């Protein structure tokens, strides 16, 4: 395997691409008991319309997530239980552009890895098992619909975007999942679970050659066709709807303000754009920004306030919010502060302070095996090396951040998602 050393962050990565196109990454962690395997496909909630066998296919919202649930079924029983019996802690998630299956264990690593590779690569669905899952997933959707954090975020995306499927809930709706059949699940598996569309990432003190051997032995020898996906017409720079208000059973009003940024590029530039977006967010409204303290001292925001910058296929946006009784005042203050920074420039010392803090936070996030694996997989899928962040930070200057703020944090690109207590504010 190819060994790459990253001395600035004290990491080493062993990598190899198998003949079937599977990308394998092993991150050695000497001294750890935990061993972590993460097997991911570049397929998520957004990939509803795609081309398979020469024809465009439309699949129901929530199908990638439904498939994730059903993958644990095997002809010999449930893989979740087989892994649990071995003392492993297995789980999975479906994101907008990725579905991942993983486990954590201290013993029987290679046996567990074989179980993981096998159940994810061999689909086994029956009408009965697919029907039975509908009740469980419907309950999961209902639970999510009661979550204010989810609601305020989902409503924001549906304001920012007109056609991009980022606006559709990943798990779909109780109605949309009614149409899902074993046949559609098999088709989606065939389209997206080919080794060439997947990444296997292992973190821990393991034998890397044994990881490769297991992958070669268990996975199909052939890759798969390159699947075209349709994310809808290109989005124009303006928001789809300026705001939406939703009433639900919550204690205090909440909000998110979002700013629609240009579609991200793929490749190394993506990492740079993402770090610039995060720096801009922190310079503008992070914990140590002048704006944050002003709003906090005025009682307009509390510790729940925060922001971030996200990039999904075809979309990128900066957003911020939390509990707030005067969301419009706060959103206006954010716009005014961005305008001021554009006009007067960002203080050089403050910029360097934020850049240093973000470098430290990025480094500290590598304490989590999950973060390492998600970053690796995302990098493989979208063409960047997540461990190159120290060099990328070095290359970003305050002018990059100023340009980002000037271009993006403007009225036309703003959308508001508001949540209000269903029965008026509590006494």
């Amino acid at each position: 395997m190819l060994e790459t050393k990253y001395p600035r962050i004290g990491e080493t990565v062993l990598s190899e691409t198998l003949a079937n196109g599977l990308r394998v990454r092993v991150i050695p962690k000497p001294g750890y008991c935990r061993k972590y395997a993460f097997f991911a496909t570049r397929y998520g909630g957004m990939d509803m319309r795609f081309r398979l066998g020469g024809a465009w296919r439309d699949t129901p919202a929530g199908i990638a997530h439904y498939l994730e649930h059903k993958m644990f079924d095997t002809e010999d029983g449930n893989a979740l239980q087989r892994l649990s019996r071995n003392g492993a802690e297995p789980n999975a998630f479906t994101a907008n552009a990725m579905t991942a299956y993983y486990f954590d264990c201290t013993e029987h690593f290679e046996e567990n890895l074989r179980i993981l590779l096998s159940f994810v690569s061999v689909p086994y669905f029956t009408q009965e098992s697919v029907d039975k899952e509908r009740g469980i997933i419907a309950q999961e959707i209902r639970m999510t619909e009661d979550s204010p954090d989810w609601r305020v975020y989902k409503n924001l995306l549906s304001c920012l975007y007109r056609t991009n499927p980022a606006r559709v809930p990943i798990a779909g709706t109780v109605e949309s999942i009614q149409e899902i059949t074993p046949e559609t699940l098999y088709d989606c598996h065939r389209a997206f679970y080919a080794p060439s569309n997947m990444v296997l990432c292992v973190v821990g003190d393991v034998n890397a050659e044994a990881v490769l051997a297991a992958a070669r032995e268990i996975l199909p020898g052939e890759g798969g066709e390159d699947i075209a996906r349709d994310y809808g017409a290109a989005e124009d720079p303006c928001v789809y709807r300026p705001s939406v208000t939703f009433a639900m059973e919550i204690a205090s009003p909440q909000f998110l303000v979002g700013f629609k940024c240009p579609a991200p590029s793929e490749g190394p530039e993506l990492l740079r754009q993402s770090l610039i977006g995060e720096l801009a967010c922190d310079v503008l409204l992070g914990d140590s920004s002048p704006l944050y303290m002003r709003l906090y001292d005025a009682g307009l925001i509390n510790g729940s306030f925060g922001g971030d910058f996200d990039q999904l296929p075809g979309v990128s946006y900066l957003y911020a919010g939390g509990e707030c009784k005067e969301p419009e005042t706060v959103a206006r203050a954010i716009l005014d502060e961005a305008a001021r920074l554009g006009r007067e420039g960002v203080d050089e010392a403050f910029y360097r302070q934020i850049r240093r803090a973000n470098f430290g936070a990025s480094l500290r996030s590598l304490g989590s095996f999950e973060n390492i694996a998600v970053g690796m997989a995302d990098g493989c899928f979208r063409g960047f090396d997540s461990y190159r962040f120290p060099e990328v930070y070095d290359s970003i200057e305050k002018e990059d951040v100023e340009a980002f703020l000037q271009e993006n944090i403007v009225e036309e690109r703003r959308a508001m998602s508001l949540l209000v207590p269903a029965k008026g504010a509590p006494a």
Partner: protein
Amino acid sequence: MDPIRKELAPGVYLNYVHAVKFKTGLLSAQLVTPLGEETAAAGALLPAVLHRGTPRHPDMRALSGALDLLYGSGLSFAVRKKGENQCLGFLAGFIDDAYVPGGEKLLEPVADLLGEVLLAPALDGGVFRADYVDGEKDNLIDAIRAILDDKRDYADKRLLEEMCRGERYGVSRLGTEAQVAALSGAALYEYYQTLLTTARVELFYCGSAEERRVEDALLRALSALPHGERVAPVASERRAAPAEPRLCTERMDVTQGKLSMGFRASTEDAHAMLLANLLFGGYSNSKLFLNVREKLSLCYYASSGYHRSKGIVTVSSGVEFADFERARDEILAQLRDVALGDFEAWELEGARSVLVSAVRSREDSASRMEENTLGQAATGLWETAGELIERLNAVTPERIAAAAASMTLDTVYFLEGEGSAHA
């Protein structure tokens, strides 16, 4: 890698873990005090007010800026409940020496900041600044109200309130809205002075620095800590379940019902109970998961937790309103199976290996070690990872059945939707 424990001063303990494998060092300073109805709100408010500023860093921006310059070190406050004690204080995370680009040492300046927020608050006329107290009172009230926003947390909290009414365990770690509203800056300052001289102090460090260096850094940072008669944490009180289980129902505008159930486990065999709980509803191969969720599709989640120091087991689940009674009966039926010893060898071995693996991998996470050490210090239930694993390995199926049989249903809490009706 169990921590080395040392009494630095009467009632002030350092728990030290030497580890070179982490990129982040962790430092924690906690005041441990019995959880009480009258003091919970003040205890919860205190670290938030302390976190607002010090004479050297008079506001949040100055404090955040200092942390930014220490390579984005984190300094957060925490209010935790361990057994029947409230633990309040600060946790700091910072890059370990080997990875600091400039070769600077971060332990000492981070320890100084930690000591500063704990012991040197920004004052005005000898008491806390009124604007800081008022602002944080509003925030704490918002946080108490926000528990309602996560219906799962809310249901679990309501269950404990109902089940442990009149016990320290039923007191919310954040206090109540009314108690927070009634707090004056003067009363809070007085409580702070009392805590500084009476609360047990638990310090924790995990990272690459040698013990001597950590001790020196902390002794310097905490040199302003007054001497006093420090009170040992209280042991949890055990009570029996009532003759008839209590039932509590609430209605709200929600789409999914929440069913929480609380049991009193009278057994003293905690290791058998740990495994009985896991087998019953503690992980993804448990009876609740496999039967109530997977086989009957009654709910999206149904899981149980064993509160070891208190000797209670709680079950929490999300169900359709119409399935409330079916789910409750099914949960009780699954428990009966465990108590009758009606489980397969693989169920026990699966539970055991998951638990042993979790204990073993504790040393891979500084924050889990901190959490665990604080819990042991607050409950007095000291046990090394090796001892715990050995005792878990010795548990027999008979002991598990006996432990489960000692569980009696105490309280059922149900959150249902507006207008929904169950028989």
